[in-house]
């Protein structure tokens, strides 16, 4: 075990864990965050994604001790009591069914729109292709991204 400092959603935390622990378990079990989920532990599905340095990364594969930058989770997207426009677009388009994958869908979309505020359909499909959904809410995920992009998220 060793002491590790993390900044998550603008707040500083110190945790005492094995430095090899995947970030996912620290976020979920030590910091009580419920956005990122365990889906595969292999970086194949996207359920556990968080944003670090502008990129949506699978927190199931990232050793906690390797993180040097601020981490943003699904819980950190809303600001001043208002949902992030992507989250609002998700409600407007009624995107989720079970919703278990939606953390990954939203965080991947956030990273996409931050870099490419007005993506083409092909760019959306390409950027989102590694983020799986077994209820098959894909069509609505894509619609919600387009809606948010139209409203100018970035």
């Amino acid at each position, binding site marked *: 075990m060793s002491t590790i400092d993390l900044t998550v959603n603008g707040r500083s935390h110190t945790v005492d864990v094995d430095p090899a622990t995947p970030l996912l378990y620290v976020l979920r079990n030590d910091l009580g965050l419920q956005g990122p989920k365990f*889906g595969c532990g292999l970086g194949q599905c996207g359920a556990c994604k968080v944003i670090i340095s502008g990129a949506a990364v699978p927190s199931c594969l990232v050793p906690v001790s390797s993180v040097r930058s601020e981490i943003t989770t699904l819980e950190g997207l809303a600001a001043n009591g208002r949902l992030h426009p992507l989250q609002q677009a998700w409600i407007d388009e009624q995107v989720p069914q*079970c919703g*278990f994958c939606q953390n990954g869908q939203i965080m991947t979309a956030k990273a996409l729109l931050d870099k490419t505020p007005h993506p083409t359909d092909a760019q959306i499909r390409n950027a989102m292709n590694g983020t799986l959904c077994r*209820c098959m809410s894909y069509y609505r995920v894509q619609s919600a991204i387009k809606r948010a992009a139209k409203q100018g998220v970035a």
Partner: protein
Amino acid sequence: MSARGGIPKEIERALRLHRRDFLKSAGMLAVSVSACAAGWATDAGAQGAAAVQGSGPYPNPDFRQIDAWIVIHENNTATFSVGKTDPGQGTGTGFRQLMSDELDIAFDKTTCIMGRTDTTVDQVGSGGSTAMERDSWPMRRVAAEARRVLLDMGAARLGVPVEQLTVHDAVISVAADPSKRVTYGELIGGRKFNVSLTGANVSSVTGLAKTKTVPELKYTGQPLQRDDIPAKVDGTLTWAVDVKLPGMVHARNVKPPFACATLAGIDESSVKGLPGFIKVMSKGNYVAVVCEREEQAIRAARQLKTTWNKPATAPFPSSEGLFDYMRTAPVAAPSGPGDAETRNAAPPTTPAGNPDDVFAGAAKRIEAEYQIPFQGHTAFGGAHATADPSNGQMTVYSNDMKSYGMRRGVATFLGMPQEQVRVIWMHGPQGFGRTAAEDAACEAAWIAREIGRPVRMQWMRDEETAWDTKSPAFLVNMRGALDANGRLIAYDYKARSCDYNHLGYNEPDTVLIAQLMGTRRARPAGGSASVPSDMYVIPNRKMTGEVVGLPAIWETPLRTGNLRDPNGPQATFAAESFIDEAAAAARVDPLEFRIRMITAGSTDDAGFRRARSLAVLKAAAEAYGWDARPSPKAVGKGDLLTGRGVAYAFRGQTIVAQIAEVEVNRKTGHVRARRLVCAHDCGLVVNPESLHHAIECGTLHGLSRAIHEEVRFDTEKVTSVDWMTHPTLRHADVPERIDIVLVNGDPNPKRPDLPPYGAGEASLKPMLAAIGNAIFDATGVRIRRVPFRDDRVLGALRAAGL
């Protein structure tokens, strides 16, 4: 924290906070916590303080009391409690719409609690698309009865007869003098109805009041937003995976490395020094490790050294040899039209005439064999449950869609009285039948009781993909005969399903931990080989099914169970591909061919399935812009060949037609759906938005099963273990356009008693065939085995000289 053994306060809070319907519309985060908290406090009071304090035991709520279903609060809001679960298709919101209508209360003044065995009545849970069709009726009748009782109370309070009262948004007023009024909350808020209902069982429970007619329903039929979505997108929902209890430890399984393996030894020294290690748990061939932290348990499970003996004979053929095996395997059980959830798919037209005689003299004969492999649930998250053994009771937090069955299963497995077990349903990944043949709860509960601490169990990805329950493989042989006019005059459907020892729901003797511990049921479940559903008039028709089993049926990862419309997609792939083949042989447009066979009949059933089948097929054709011509079309010149296909089926009384337009890459074999049209008639539409969503997702699930999904295995283990080896539909696979047409094909579409039918599964049913038929239209090549993966399609194109 609450008293030990109770549901911790923060989980109670979380269960309550995600039902934030009081805060609808803008600014979802501006939660009116006080309103929610007040609502919950009265909830808890009415539903039994024991549940919240959690000491147990947990007797069944009395379904014959209005109080078990409806609580009116002093602030004139209502909490509904129903014995269903909503794995994400919007049924919970739909129940609120129907009950709000019957009770005459504003929708946004209501909440709905689902699937808690200690506080909600036992309506089984979800499954079989029964939410609206069957289980919304007792809810409606109880809400109507509550309204009647409140009107009686209002009449007494206001001193006028009931006939002179009106009720609107939970306010009763005198029709002639609206200033004279009283609210539901003033009449009964915070107190009990103490009104008994009648009925032999929960499905037939009723009061004296009549339910409303369709024109009287106000919220029903409106596209209201689902109440579970906001907390699913802002990260505030507490899911079953999020449960944390004081003293809780983490468990992970160590699965046998191959089927039917016998545990020869465990070298505990391989993990003893690991940080957080608590214990290796083992009985028979079941092995798990327990650690303080989650990542420690994962590491210990991977690191634990175990030795296993292989079975003397191979437990199953490889996936490549499956259909050869199934063709000659001995019959394990004859099969009727299917299990309880598929039986209603049997058409009223079977059997008829004598196909065998007709084949001999037919103008044209067609024979074909169709193959559908095992397909997995592969839920997005692994099986999981948290079990709390405090106070000699057992509380299980789970996303099991049938929480009441899980309660019975866990209690029986542990040998505990049912009253000492309760299951708290919480959201989780999918449902579709997997979270009913659920595995993690018995594992967590057994370990929790053995070590005396709350245990959180979760399956890893490879476990879930390899060892979850599978949709049975089907091998279907079909024969047909056409007369000189191109009419299908004989039809013989013969299915073999590999489904012996089909797992039921929450069975304590077939759940995987019980199998691994050595339990064997004397008579394994027979399984089923369902027949297709259609309204075709075929004068000579025979449809039969039989079940075969794999050589090993216990302690194997090839366990069959129900997957979303069990058997429907398999039977329909064969039958609706075959009808397409018959249409092609007759050189008739495939849609026209189907319509001719339906219009050839004149009798209909009580639900008008014949009339509605025609309406649905015509609606799909119109929405697509169907050009009538025989399939296939002339093969195009470029690399991308395009075509369209249609298929249709019904599940129960719900009729669905799918039209798919695909492109087939002749160089790579890749099949991509460009456009999908689904026409769907499920009677009364409770919420068109949720319905649209359910149909859309079911359609795409069908597309995924058509082009991607197959469980692969060698002769000792399943080799599909992750998203690379059991691929699923991805963003790039989604068609540019999906049109969903909600049809009301009832001969009297405005009839006041139009009932709702099921909608959770039907759209998936014809999709495999629709895609196969579209590939045939594009290429002239009939592929009779799913999934239509690139290599298989390319091989078929090459074999046909394309």
